[in-house]
């Protein structure tokens, strides 16, 4: 790291922020005018945007339930953003009250808000950290308190890796996590893609105004991120196609969602 660990994180309320835009797309009001302005432009460029976010959120719910079914009881949610509705701990603790969840985000506002929401829930914690530094994150006191690395962990990289540019080496970051996780752990990834949507350019342009520009990747590259994990059926697919709760949840042209998701398990 170029910056010493004790240097303060950036806090710029004048810039739109991906976490608060995501909240807006999901119908939340945990956002500021500057976020809404860009989010509205994104919706104008790509009217399906809110539905894409909903599909992503629904995928998260299905993936968490799947991992719970695999016996995973501890979750690390990287890039958790603003807690809105259907948060990981709600899904997990609804099914397994002993499940533990650590939320991780770089954005200080998202972290402060998450802490307010989760106050009193001692099986959850919120860590302000960069998920791109696995070793530093896994050494964090909160993480160590709630996550036992000798037991399977559900590592959630939901709609976050497209904010990690190639020069930060996403496969290397995931390999670092993989080396620290116990067998039986699961990796969930959803990722905005170059495939599907026709509105790629304006969305990329809009996210350039945020502290986290977006880097879309193709399905093959996204599949490559699961290296070392066994992809469970149906593999890396358009979000609604992954283990739908009801056949009707999948329409004929799932590519409208322009994002892929998958779950891998560590043997």
């Amino acid at each position, binding site marked *: 790291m170029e910056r*010493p660990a*004790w*240097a*303060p*994180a950036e*806090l710029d*309320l004048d810039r739109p922020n991906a976490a*608060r835009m995501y909240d807006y797309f*999901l*119908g*939340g*009001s*945990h*956002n*500021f005018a500057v976020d809404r302005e860009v989010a509205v432009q994104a919706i104008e460029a790509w009217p399906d945007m809110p*539905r894409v*976010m*909903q599909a992503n*959120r*629904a995928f998260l*719910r299905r993936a968490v339930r799947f991992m719970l079914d695999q016996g995973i009881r501890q979750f690390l949610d990287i890039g958790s953003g*603003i807690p*809105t*509705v*259907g948060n990981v701990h*709600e*899904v997990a603790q609804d099914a397994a009250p002993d499940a533990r969840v650590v939320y991780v985000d770089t954005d*200080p*506002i*998202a*972290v*402060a*808000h998450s802490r*307010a*929401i989760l106050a009193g829930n001692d099986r959850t914690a919120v860590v302000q950290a960069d998920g791109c530094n696995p070793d530093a994150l896994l050494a964090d006191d909160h993480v160590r308190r709630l996550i036992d690395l000798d037991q399977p962990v559900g590592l959630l990289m939901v709609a976050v890796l497209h904010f990690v540019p190639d020069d930060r080496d996403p496969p290397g970051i995931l390999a670092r996590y993989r080396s620290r996780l116990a067998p039986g752990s699961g990796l969930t990834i959803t990722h905005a893609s170059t495939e599907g949507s026709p509105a790629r350019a304006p969305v990329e342009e809009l996210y350039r105004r945020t502290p986290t520009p977006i880097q879309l990747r193709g399905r093959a590259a996204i599949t490559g991120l699961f290296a070392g994990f066994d992809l469970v059926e149906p593999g890396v697919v358009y979000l609604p196609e992954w283990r739908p*709760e*009801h056949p*009707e*949840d999948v329409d004929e042209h799932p590519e409208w969602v322009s994002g892929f998701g998958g779950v891998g398990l560590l043997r």
Partner: protein
Amino acid sequence: MTDPAGSPHISPPPARLRAGAGLTGGREAALLGCVQDLARAARETSYVAMDRRQLEDYLQAVLSRLVRALVAEPFSTDAAYQVGTELVGAHFTGPEMSGWTVKILGSRLLPDLDLDTPAYRSRLAAVLGAISTSFARALRDRTLDDQEDIRRAAHLAQDQAERALRDSEERRRVEARRDPLTSLPNRVGLTEHLTGVLADAAPGHRIGLALLNIDRFQAIYDTLGPDAADQLLAAAADRFRDHLPAGAVLARIGGDEFALLVPATDGPDDLVKPADTLLAALTSEPVYAGATPLNLTASAGLIERPATSVDANELLRAADIALSWAKTDGRNRWRLFDPDRNTSDTARWTLAAELPIALRDRQLVVHYQPMISLTDGRLHAVEALVRWQHPRHGLLPPGRFIPAAEETGLVVPLGRLVLADACAEAATWAEQAPNPPLLSVNLAAAQLRDPGFLGDVLDTLDATGLPPERLQFEILETAVIHPDDAALTTLHALTDAGIRLAIDEFGTGHANHTYLRRLPLHELKLAAEFVTRVGGPHAERLDQHVATSLIDLGHTLGLTVTAEGVETHDQAAWLRAAGCDTAQGWHYTGAVTSDRLRQLLRSRRVSP
């Protein structure tokens, strides 16, 4: 819009439809179409954290309550109002949700339930109105709450960021003043501390500062490498720290340089004792670089002063000067700063620094002092003496700059310059006098060690045309007491070439004169201190005996004996009587310029 508190006056529905506590199974089934429509609307307008089944169950329950309210007597919109609030609570918060609900229920609920009568239509209108109202109100409240939450989070984050910034600035401030290897204050930290003490100093307050430097650390670094060197420094710092007196401050202000600050002293002892303790602690037992034990020593420069009369930089500089004295005086010791030593040092080193310029700009001039024959008053020889015509300090005698030139090695080019000038001058003397005097030139030990020296001398003689037998070198006794083979070879080569050799300041260097027999000498110059008390009313008998025996020694060895520093007629008379051959000194003349010397040569007389 309908006010839930004051329900509108709506006529009751037909009695057959007045329901009891719950709906029949038939009615549940009749609601299914509405439930599915609503579920679709919900999924399309908002993210709802439920799967399809959960969502339909939830909506079924909601609708059942609405229907019960619709048929209840007396009719009330309270339940409908509650449903609007609940939908928002369950995150059915899409902006279109309220509209869809009204549309779906308004178009299919009554037909599906087979209740499509004007009276129920009227009740349903009131129910839908209540839902819309409460939905809008709840959504607005929720939005305001969310906004309040996120702003509170932003403020909190901002507070934390500011606190983090303050902490990090403090941290940065501390880091900037701390040496990471030893965790001691660094130079910035020490200077700040020192400045603080000096600023707060009351009259009478004294302060002590010592700079400690590990001896020959560069050699250790070069041998063991940077990692081991760091380990040694950390270990040395620990050793110092363990012996630090209360109230004193230890700092690491450079690679191998430490500082000891004693903020309040009553005199030099209060600094000398702790500094000496630290030096002793370091030498007391080996210091380890990993498993390698090393015996370290350190030198220290000390300054102890009234705190009101100095600034931090002056203290540091003074301690640094004293440290250099400790180093030149042999290391593994301390030296207390002494302003007198500093003044002479400063002048000497300033001059030393300017000496190369003097050589380049030919600011050095040669003056000449005659040596007179005590038997016939003839000019026996002339000693070439260098002077520095300094642009600011005027004419400087050799004592002011030759020691520095010897230390810096500049004495070699300087000697070469003097020799060339003097030989050129001496070559002209034959034109002034039929028996011109010898030219006697001082030779420094460094010149004798210079491998090019002999060649330089012979070249100079060639170039100037001065016959070798008219050139004499004066060597200090101390330079030839233990001559090495090379020096001896050079001396023999000089005399083989016909050049004369004289021992300068004879009698001052050594008691044992056996070395004289190994040297190809021609002349002894008796040091001035043996001459001072040999003549006149205050003559000392012992001095006369010593002088006589030295003169006899010279003659025994077959050498010409010259007395230096002859200042009075009585001294000259006594020396003549004692058999001394020649004399030099103010009694005859001091050193003169080359022009003046030529006049003397032409007049063939030297006063008196």
